[in-house]
């Protein structure tokens, strides 16, 4: 069995900085687990601790039933794919893939047959005798994966393997990776900063921030029931819109109207909350029929309408003073924006492509408030998701 269990794993450096803090995670046998988060959140450090390339300061790491904290990388029976592939430049593709097998003392016949199998699966047969320098990025990436696959290890550890590829190739390789993993059935831990990759590839996704695990769950789970402001704003593109709200007497007042508060947030005194609504909760009123009662209609002047062909994104302001929170600022910093995504005054709504709305229109919009998320402004914790 090759489950990987992290128990209270902490990585503390000499100067006191904690890259990973008290992380508990159970990765099941054969699972595709994704570690995702902004730069510096500790996901790569966590991966390297699983690999044995970093020492674990506190906590227990198990692979299968064995505690492996003190075991060297070479004895953990795991294979790693690095961000820059780390192919041995002086060896041919064949020799690169044979290297781990030779070190393990496997006989030449088995080595040859294993390499032949893997080369076939990865479509590397014509390149076996070439050197990495003569290969394209995508081919090098496949060689790196091939080197990991030939070993038939207990687990694959992948550190942002697709981030050095161009966008189109990345999409292509994403499906390749997913297909390979489901065929081989090997436990895989995959680190990425791209939430799209996380959502499309993983059986389960673990969101990290500043060394702390925020939430673990299936992509649908993270999308529909984010536990806190950070996860809500990180997962989903375009990001969730955040706006200030006020709960009083079983109702939530939002900038565009009042709605009844969800069950879980009804009790308690009157207080401020941060409300979150995903862009797809909005719609052009003229295109809404049966669901009208579920939501609220309001008018807004559209600052911008982007037509993507399959849908339209409308940007408008709510006339509120915006929302401020530490988590939202970090999300903005990670996305390279000056302002918080959706936390300022601006809202982005996803409208059906059939909508005829244009920039500058005084649009009547409808929002599905049954999909409202509420968060506590201080702690960032969700008041609506368990």
């Amino acid at each position, binding site marked *: 069995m090759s489950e990987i269990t992290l128990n209270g794993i902490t990585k503390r450096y000499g100067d006191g900085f904690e890259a990973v803090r008290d992380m508990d995670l159970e990765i099941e046998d054969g699972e595709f687990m994704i570690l995702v988060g902004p730069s510096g959140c500790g996901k790569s450090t966590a991966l390297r601790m699983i*690999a*044995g*390339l970093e020492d674990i300061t506190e906590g227990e790491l198990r692979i299968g039933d064995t505690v492996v904290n003190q075991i*060297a*990388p*070479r004895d953990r029976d*795991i*294979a*790693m794919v*690095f961000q*820059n*592939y*780390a*192919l*041995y*430049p*002086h060896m041919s593709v064949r020799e690169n893939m044979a*290297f*781990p097998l030779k*070190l*393990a003392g496997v006989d030449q016949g088995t080595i040859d047959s294993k390499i032949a199998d893997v080369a076939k699966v990865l479509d590397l047969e014509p390149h076996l005798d070439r*050197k*990495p*320098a003569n290969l394209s*990025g995508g081919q*090098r*990436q496949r060689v*790196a994966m091939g*080197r990991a696959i030939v*070993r038939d290890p207990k687990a694959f550890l992948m550190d942002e393997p697709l981030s*050095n590829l161009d966008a189109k190739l990345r999409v292509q390789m994403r499906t390749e990776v997913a297909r390979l993993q489901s065929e081989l059935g090997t436990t895989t831990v995959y680190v990425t900063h791209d939430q799209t990759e996380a959502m499309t590839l993983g059986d389960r996704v673990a969101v990290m921030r500043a060394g702390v695990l925020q939430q673990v769950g299936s992509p649908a789970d993270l999308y529909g029931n984010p536990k806190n402001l950070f996860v809500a704003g990180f997962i989903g593109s375009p990001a969730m819109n955040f706006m200030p709200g006020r709960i009083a007497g079983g109702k939530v007042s939002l900038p565009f109207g009042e709605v009844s508060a969800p069950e879980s947030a009804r009790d308690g005194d009157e207080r401020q909350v941060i409300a979150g609504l995903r862009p797809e909760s909005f719609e052009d009123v003229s295109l809404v029929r049966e669901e009208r009662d579920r939501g609220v209609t309001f008018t807004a002047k559209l600052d911008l309408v982007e037509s993507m062909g399959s849908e339209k994104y409308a940007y408008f302001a709510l006339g509120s003073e915006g929302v401020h929170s530490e988590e939202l600022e970090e999300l903005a910093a990670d996305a390279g924006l000056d302002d918080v995504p959706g936390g300022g005054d601006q809202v982005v709504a996803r409208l059906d492509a059939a909508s005829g709305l244009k920039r500058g229109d005084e649009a009547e919009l409808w929002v599905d408030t049954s999909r409202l998320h509420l968060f506590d402004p201080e702690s960032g914790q969700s008041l609506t998701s368990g």
Partner: protein
Amino acid sequence: MERGTREYTLWSIGILIVLFFALMPVLWIISLSLKTPATITEGTTFWDRFIPQDITFENYESLFTGGLSESPFIAPLINSILIAIIATTIAIVLAAFAAYAIARLDFPGKALILAGALAIAMFPAISTVGPLFDMWRTLGLYDTYPGLIIPYLTFSLPLAIYTLVAFFREIPWDLEHAAQVDGATPYQAFRKVIIPLAAPGVFTAAILVFIFAWNDFLFAISLTSSDASRTVPAALAFFTGESQFTQPTGNIAAAAVIVTVPIIIFVLLFQRRIVSGLTAGAVKG
């Protein structure tokens, strides 16, 4: 194109002139080595003196007559070859380990070690000769192979270490991590992944150490007294001529030519290795 060929010829002529100027001493020595003792100083014009009138190989022959015991040259030549090769091998091995540690690890005293190595390299070698003479005589290392190899190591290691540190730094750390995860012990990772990639650096350092040991005159003349360990540069000083008053110029020139040739071959061979760009373009994955 006329313009092209004219430029080409002008450049060729220019380069030939510079080459001739630079190689003049070497060519002169070759010409000296081919002259008979009587005609060494003959000739009035430059070309008469440069091109030997009677070409003779007797200078080369007389170096090797008498075999190992009688010939003034064979024993020193063997000494030179063995001492230089041994010193180079030991220096490269030690420098490789030291440079690896310095390039990869952060340990207390690292800056001190590097500064110390630099200081040793800059130290005037001649000031160590007197004390070494005394020490070696006491220790019984005088006129022995180790007696020369140890000072050679001392003064060439810093240079070798610095060269190798620069090369090791160029190799991305991820390659060693990949090797570790693939199942290699640190030593295996070093031997199978790092050394082949640092080969250009290793050859550069090897050439530098070899040339230093091969050409050294100071230690060779001070720390040896017989053919037991005297190397060629020192042995040249003891060549005897036809009489007490004549210099065996022809012999010395012939010996110098024989001693220079290996270096030239060495450098030509390894120069290709260094320039081959073993890691060019392949290092990022």
